[in-house]
């Protein structure tokens, strides 16, 4: 039996899979790259939802891991390592180390402190990236060429990149779905619901939260590797605090604590940004107003809003 959300996810993946041929048929092949970017952010949003939605850890430094992933590509590329598997590996290891260190410190605290500290560590990485004058400092640098797969330049074709991203998104979705239903996921959800209760049945919660934080960081770094390839350009802006904010927005708009929600939230947010940016130079103003309205009047995100409008009550 499949849940409504599982069904929704399946439909989304099916729609995504047929997007490029349809767009090309319509003569709008360019939009496929927009959809690629939407899916990359969906991976990042999924990773954030693991700690934000399931662990109730409001991390405001998640873009750092996007930055780590993207710079892993740039740095390895400059050393002549273009293989994407090697880049994924290096990015994931670097992200894991950074997450383990900063997470150990940040997770000793709660609430507002945790938000501020993750924000500060994110900013620390941002300044680190800016200081790398070899890689363009403030401005960043463009990627000489996209990554290779087993020595082949397949990813130079946008379509190949599209389906690689789609595949990885599907893998992440499946993996995280399993994880949230596993023993580990249950413990994580338990700490979200009531940390004291969890301790009173014998769980030391820090290792679980830290593990979730590290897993989340590693997945997000994968999104960073893909993003560098999609943009063919890497800059510290990928790791800015505004980007971390945007990632949170995606998760919350889609409905926090639901993987399908986080994914749709990302697709929707990036799509909306792209659309608005075409209409007005000052799209951020309207985006901000929309976000403010959603937070003030529909705390459950767009999912609740949609449910309320269609009269279906709270989606379970």
């Amino acid at each position, binding site marked *: 039996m499949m849940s409504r959300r599982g069904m929704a996810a399946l439909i989304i993946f099916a729609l995504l899979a047929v997007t490029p041929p349809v767009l090309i048929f319509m003569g709008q092949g360019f939009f496929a790259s927009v959809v690629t970017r939407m899916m990359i952010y969906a991976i990042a949003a999924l990773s954030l939802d693991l700690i*934000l939605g399931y662990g109730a850890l*409001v991390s*405001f430094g998640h873009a750092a891991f996007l930055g780590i992933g993207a710079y892993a590509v740039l740095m390895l590329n400059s050393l002549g390592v273009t293989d994407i598997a090697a880049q994924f590996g290096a990015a994931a290891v670097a992200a894991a180390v950074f997450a383990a260190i*900063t997470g150990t*410190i940040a997770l*000793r*605290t*709660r*609430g*507002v*402190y945790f*938000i*501020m*500290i993750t*924000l*500060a*560590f994110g*900013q*620390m990485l941002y*300044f*680190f990236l*800016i*200081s*790398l*004058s*070899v890689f363009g400092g403030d401005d960043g640098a463009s990627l000489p060429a996209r990554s290779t797969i087993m020595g082949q330049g397949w990813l130079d074709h946008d379509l190949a990149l599209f389906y690689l991203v789609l595949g990885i998104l599907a893998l992440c979705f499946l993996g995280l779905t399993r994880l949230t239903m596993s023993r580990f996921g249950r413990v994580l959800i338990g700490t979200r619901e009531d940390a004291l209760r969890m301790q009173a049945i014998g769980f030391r919660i820090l290792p679980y939260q830290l593990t979730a934080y590290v897993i989340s960081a590693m997945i997000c770094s994968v999104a960073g590797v893909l993003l560098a390839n999609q943009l063919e350009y890497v800059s510290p802006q990928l790791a800015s*605090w*505004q980007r971390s*904010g945007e990632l*949170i*927005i995606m998760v*919350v708009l889609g409905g*926090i604590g639901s993987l399908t929600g986080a994914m749709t939230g990302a697709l929707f947010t990036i799509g909306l940004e792209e659309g608005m940016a075409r209409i007005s130079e*000052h799209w*951020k*103003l309207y*985006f*901000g*107003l929309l*976000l*403010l309205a959603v*937070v*003030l009047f529909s*705390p459950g995100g767009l999912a609740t809003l949609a449910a309320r409008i269609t009269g279906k009550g709270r989606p379970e």
Partner: protein
Amino acid sequence: MSNLLLLQVLNGAQFGILLFLVAAGLTLVFGIMDFINLAHGVLYMVGAYLMASLSMLTGSFWWGLLLTLPATMLVGLVLEVAIFRRLYDRPHLDQVLATFALVMILSEGVKIIWGAAPLNVSMPNLLSGSIPLAGPIRFPVYRLAIIAAGLATAFGLWFVIGRTRIGMLLRAGAHDRAMVSALGVDIGRLFMLVFAFGAMLAGFAGAMVSPILSVDPGMGDQILILGFVVIVIGGVGSIRGAFVASLLVGIIDTVGRIFGPIVLKMVLELDAATQAGRTVAPMLVYILMAAILCWRPNGLFGRTSA
């Protein structure tokens, strides 16, 4: 060399004082209302822009400053009444999102009104020029004036919080909100006041800095995040902590950026040292924050419970 160090320490102190003006409002709002306001940095920016316009309009730095203060206070009041008060009882995540939305709205709004190009504010004659410091090194009068104004504000805050009835209520409120309500004080009004006052301090900082920095739409971000670092180091809700941490952060950041590469180069005698110094210096304050957190999870002057 030691003269140069003195100069940089003074520069750092001046930066720290500005940071304090921003952090003071932030930490009060955190401590008393348990409210996280990402839009606080934007108030600093708005202060600088208002200063640019008002001083141009009146043709006087002083009139500009005098008008900027109530104007930013008004902005703070409007935001509090229209938005923030709906968020006090909401989860932190909602506060983060709503105030982040405000950052987007106000930053973009500023771009629409004033354009994206940086603005300049001219320095008043009275405060331009510099005084000899030691040997050939001189220090700008204006920066001294910022330090003096900041110290005066800090003293004023210390007096208000330590010696007046309102201050007593604030301290009590930071400790136990219900108790203040029980004293028959309208907690909503108290919050509004704190907020407006915090906004004014941030605006004041923005106005003061406008003649020495270019006024641009991104100027609030950096100061906001350093403000958080200050609060984490000093302890949420503690004005004294904010003061000490601001100076610490201001001085370490400024001195580190100048001397980090120099010192490393002396130690390592390598070309790579300059790059390493340039890399480490901007990270110093964050490393300091991490170290202090390991040592005292609630900050230097934070309450010790949980």
